[in-house]
């Protein structure tokens, strides 16, 4: 291929990449712009499109006040508490389990592994309804325990971490054992430092699961004291209690928050999952 052809191909790739990125962003951008419009302007300026289709003009911050009044910022705080607890505690229980399954030799190892795979193949939402009635018998409704607990039992996270841990050479483990490290020491001093990308991706899985959850909080936390942001937005939309502009603003805020950990984690995605000094 000549350099000219290569350059043309590269520009074509760039153009396609931009088109894909713009299509991914467009609905969110449209909602974000709507969040700063007056209610009467939400469906204006679309047909025919003008520069006002893309820019909120005249812009307003009224929707912020509407959301504050509707208690949406409390809902956001509830969501954040649930997500932080889910990611933190989820890793605390998943990492040792994955390590045991990947490294340790003990009776019944394959059985427990198959059991874990089986549990992540059982759709959580499908057992959410019987689980919710179990939780109500235990009086766990309308509590952070009730909201967080089911998200911790994520077999998929264990599966993913185990796959990664299996790639760490046994020589490292043997050397560490000869140096007198216990198994928790091997996990803490060797595996965790070598597994940052895998841990980030496992944390992301727990994050997405928690930030996305809809059916479970709908079933288990009906009280406004524990209503999470996505449920609150769906309620605004369903009851017509809050105007479209405010819904758009709430949707935009809820969509933007995951950007913070995502951008922080982005460098782990650009480097390979396996080139962290273990090859």
């Amino acid at each position: 291929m000549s350099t000219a052809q290569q350059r043309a191909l590269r520009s074509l790739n760039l153009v396609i990449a931009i088109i894909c990125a713009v299509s991914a962003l467009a609905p969110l951008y449209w909602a974000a712009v709507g969040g700063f419009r007056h209610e009467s302007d939400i469906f204006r300026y679309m047909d025919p499109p003008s520069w006002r289709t893309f820019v909120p003009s005249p812009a307003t911050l009224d929707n912020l006040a509407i959301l504050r009044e509707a208690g949406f910022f409390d809902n956001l705080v509830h969501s954040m508490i649930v997500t932080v607890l889910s990611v933190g505690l989820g890793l605390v229980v998943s990492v040792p389990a994955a390590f045991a399954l990947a490294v340790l030799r003990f009776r019944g190892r394959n059985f427990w592994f198959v059991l874990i795979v089986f549990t992540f193949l059982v759709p959580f939402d499908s057992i959410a309804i019987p689980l919710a009635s179990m939780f109500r018998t235990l009086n766990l409704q309308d509590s952070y325990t009730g909201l967080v607990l089911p998200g911790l039992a994520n077999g998929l996270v264990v599966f993913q971490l185990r796959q990664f841990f299996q790639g760490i050479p046994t020589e490292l483990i043997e050397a560490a054992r000869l140096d007198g490290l216990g198994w928790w020491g091997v996990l803490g001093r060797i595996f965790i430092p070598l597994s940052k990308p895998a841990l980030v991706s496992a944390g992301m899985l727990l994050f997405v699961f928690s930030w996305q959850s809809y059916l479970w909080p709908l079933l288990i936390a009906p009280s406004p004291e524990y209503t999470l942001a996505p449920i609150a937005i769906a309620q605004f939309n369903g009851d017509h209690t809050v105007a479209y502009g405010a819904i758009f603003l709430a949707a935009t805020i809820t969509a933007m928050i995951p950007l913070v950990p995502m951008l922080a984690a982005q460098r782990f995605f650009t480097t390979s999952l396996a080139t962290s000094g273990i090859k």
Partner: protein
Amino acid sequence: MKLREARNGIYRSQATAAATMLLPMLALLVLLRLLPLANAMWSSLRDPRLGATGYVGIDNYLRVLSDPVFLKTLNVTAMFTAIINPLQIGLALALAVLLSQRIPAVGLWRTLVFLPAVVPQAVSAIIWGIALRSDGIFNALLHQAGFSKQGFLTSPTQALWCIILILTWIGVGYWMVILIAGINDIPPELNEAAKVDGAGALRRFWHITLPQLRRPLLFVLVADTVANFLIFAPVQILTKGGPAHSSSIIMFDIFERSYITGDVPGASAATVLLVALVLSVVAIQFRLLPGGDD
């Protein structure tokens, strides 16, 4: 003798460590996943109106499976699954290949394509629902392009396609990121050697990228299929399974049975059928792609 004792000692310490490391997760999985599943199985075999045990065998299954609404749901779910899984995985693979090339600001494009995956489905559903209204932006664009207004979510022939479109927009970036990680794991020597041998981009994709991606692809295939069997929020928020049950994907049917119709045994039977369906699809996929499940 001493060596044997020492070895036994190592094994014993492994067993103790394994127990303490595994126990919390296993306890959670048993209590929060298996117990409710057992609960659903048990409740699917009972009729609570017949007293404490009220065992009725497979009556609930026969009733659900002869219910035209449930048969319609199965039909819709089958069509939905057959379309959305190849669509999402194909697009995710194409995007992963594209966005693992050397392109200016590639990290930015990747992040933007991934962005919809972290937006809660319920939130995306609401945004798309407003965009697809009769006075929404899509109809405005169609009108500008000279087409007539479409029903979208209110049309029995379009509602399911709209949900597929929304979910594809949501999901593709997530699977793409996993596949990009897989592509980055491919030893660069392989591609360089193939280039030296004069292999074009297409042949390198077919003979190097695709075989090397087998493991992450298998993971994406299984996880995406399972995820798509669970779709609930967009259906509940946007169409309530309608119009005329045309977008009634199985999870919504189960929810409706237990919370709206109040048919808990029927919902439990449907739950058990769904779990069996998911497990058999996954088993078939593992069979089709040998070597990925060690």
